[in-house]
């Protein structure tokens, strides 16, 4: 029976599914990486994803243009992150409390807005067109899975390298990392820590919003309240495990996506694994990974600590 399961189609479907499921995680975790490097622990990530998902869905529903929807998702995520900017970056309030406030209010708000607008109905969007990359999409297994995806998937993967380059090779990236590892030093060097953290936080919001928009527009085609179902928190964990390196964030997101996609695919071919086990496995994996590998020194020294000039 083993041979029949591990057919080329099956493997292709699993990989394709992994990319599809891992993409929102990737986008949100990339965003969280930027915030964490800048010294901000963005617990409200999931709230940003939710409003992104809702805004993306509604705008796509109105305009019929998924790209406009995705842009709206980015804008919505950034709008939510303004709360983080005002309360945590500017006022120096506790990041965990503010993050939870963002999460709760956005969960409630999107649910309310959806109910006010659509009541009990869940209209469906058209699927986003798939872009087959000429030549590469002809490769067996990898062709149909990796190189036959909506354009936004390629954009997401490209973003990994953009963020990598940003953090490692630009003045802004250096400043972002300094805002997390030594905000007082950055301040004394003449760079406004508040401004850098604001930029980082807004970027995080935009990416998380995009991740949410992706879920609503590309993966699901509908908006359901609470549809992110904890993915924001998984993204936070992936970002922490990635230790500020976007390529590792990509690997982590794809592994999570793979775990979800393998289980779904197995169910499709008749091997029934309870969904609870499927949903639990990634977390168990992370716990084991954390217990075995992670240490606190991986995190920026000033993570979660507000910056006030003259007090460091």
């Amino acid at each position, binding site marked *: 029976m083993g041979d029949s399961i591990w057919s080329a189609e099956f493997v292709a479907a699993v990989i394709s599914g992994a990319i599809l499921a891992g993409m929102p995680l990737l986008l949100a975790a990339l965003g969280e990486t930027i915030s964490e490097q800048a010294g901000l622990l963005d617990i409200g990530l999931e709230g940003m994803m939710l409003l992104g998902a809702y805004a993306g869905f509604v705008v796509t529903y109105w305009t019929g243009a998924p790209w406009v929807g995705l842009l709206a998702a980015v804008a919505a995520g950034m709008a939510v992150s303004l709360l983080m900017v005002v309360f945590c970056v500017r006022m120096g309030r506790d990041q965990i409390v503010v993050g939870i406030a963002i999460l709760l209010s956005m969960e409630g708000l999107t649910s309310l807005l959806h109910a006010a607008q659509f009541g009990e109905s869940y209209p469906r969007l058209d699927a986003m067109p798939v872009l087959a990359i000429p030549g590469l999409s002809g490769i067996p297994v990898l062709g149909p899975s990796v190189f036959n995806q909506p354009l936004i998937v390629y954009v997401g993967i490209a973003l990994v390298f953009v963020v990598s380059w940003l953090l490692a*090779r*630009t*003045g*802004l990236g*250096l*400043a972002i*990392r*300094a805002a997390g*590892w*030594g905000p*007082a*030093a*950055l*301040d*004394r*060097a*003449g*760079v*406004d820590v508040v*401004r*850098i953290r604001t*930029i980082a936080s807004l970027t995080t919001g935009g990416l998380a919003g995009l991740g949410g928009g992706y879920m609503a527009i590309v993966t699901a085609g509908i908006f359901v309240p609470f549809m992110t179902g904890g993915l924001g928190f998984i993204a936070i964990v992936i970002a922490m495990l990635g230790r500020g390196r976007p390529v590792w964030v990509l690997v982590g997101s794809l592994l999570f996506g793979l775990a979800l996609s393998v289980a779904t695919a197995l169910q499709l071919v008749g091997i029934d694994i309870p969904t609870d086990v499927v949903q639990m496995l990634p977390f168990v994996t992370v716990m084991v990974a954390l217990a075995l590998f992670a240490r606190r*020194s991986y995190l920026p020294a000033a993570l979660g600590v507000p910056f006030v*000039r*003259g007090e460091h």
Partner: protein
Amino acid sequence: MTATPAPSADGVSSGGPSDAIAIELRGITKLFPGVRANDGVDLVVRRGEVHCLLGENGAGKSTLMNVLAGIYRPDEGAILVGGREAAIACPRDAIELGIGMVHQHSSLIPSFTVLENLMLGRGAGVRLGVKQARQGLAELATVLGVEVDPGTPAGQLSLGQQQQVEIIRALWHGSRVLILDEPTSLLTPKGIADLERVLVRLKQQGLAVVFITHKLQEAFAIGDRISVLRRGRLAGTVDGPTMKALSPDELQRLVVGIMFPGEAQSLARVAGLGEPSEPGAAGRQAAGGEPLLELCEVTVAGAHNEVGIREALSLTLHAGEVLGVAGVDGNGQRPLAEAIAGQRPLASGDVRLAGTSLRRLSIAARQRLGLRYVTDDRLGEGVVESLSVAVNLVSKCIGRPPFWVRGRTRLAVIDAHAAALVDEYGIKAPGVRALAGTLSGGNVQKVVVARELSFAPRLVVFNKPTYGLDLMTTASVRARIRDLVDEGTAGALLISTDLEELLALSDRVAVLSRGRLMGVVPNRPGAEQEIGALMIGGGRDA
């Protein structure tokens, strides 16, 4: 020709072409809650000159310069740069006006490379300019006559090298005025010599240098002009010609007179700030008491970027003795103290207190044996700022009678105990229930000392016990240390970076350098030179 008293501000400047004036501070006042850190200070900083800002800890030197560097905003007063009034709202403004500051504690990010640290602050745009930075580093290093590897993480450099990188960074950012805040406090003698050489070159380049220090001799050696701050006010200025005209003794008398006017002269001697005092209590002899603390072949791992105890260290401290530990800060003092107290594990060797091995004992168990530790980080770990003075005074005996009976807190007993100690140690607090964080630094230290010295201590480790304290508190803490051992049953290990303090209190002085014990010197006439030689001997400033 001599020092001008502060109030007549216009008398401070003593001629010289006005175009040589780089910075002028007029009537700077800086208020902190309950404190006038700076009170109408006037100051003129000239090009091609090292201007020493002298004063005790807490006199407002750092605050004044932090105002200039944009860290604090003044409540009153004006800053003139190149003759024009300048608004300095943040460090960036200061940097753009050509003012660079090297803070007392490193402003480099330890996990970043030298090059990355250098590029910090070169805007937050897309371009990083690695090439220019590398080039600038090489050029400026040549100018200053220092060697720095651009790829090394800053945390792996010695403190002296870190300082050099910070100076280079300030110059690279175009600083024409360089402020150095207590730059020698963390340096070895070799590092200090290097710094002096660099300063000479900076002067030749026409830079204005402000050199903050609380050490008289340093100000005399390095400064071209000395301004003395006292309690936030400018107490007086001694200009270059005057400094040259006076003999060292006369100069010293003059400056001490400005720093401690009137009868406070005697206090200056207590604090070791005055004339090189005759060896404290005329050369103490090692008491012949029982061995109390024995360190046997001890090594201790340093934390991240910290020098531990690298070479097996053996020392014996007898009852009735103060054993001093000399050395420049960061040469293994804290690891040693914490290993004895039990706050970090021994890498090898053993510590015995009156014959009992402490190796496997917890902090609490060591405390019950009579071991006490007066930490050098009094606000960071010595007290809990948001708990009351009373609770802080018993925080090391939680759960034990008479303050706790069967786990139940007896508030009345705790308060009474605190009231007695507040009285005995002269702790100035609004009440025993006042939060420790509302006390001044000196009173916090009194709380810490009172806690450690209560309940019959046998051995007390003092780690920089008077650092940053005012003269009165310093004198009282020093008296406590001597009183403790003079009864003959207890002992004290006194870790200090202040040689005068060590000579005034210790029976013997051990010298620590780069995590190694360089030797133990009995406190006799001439001990100062011996200790200095041992410090330099180990002072490879690598």
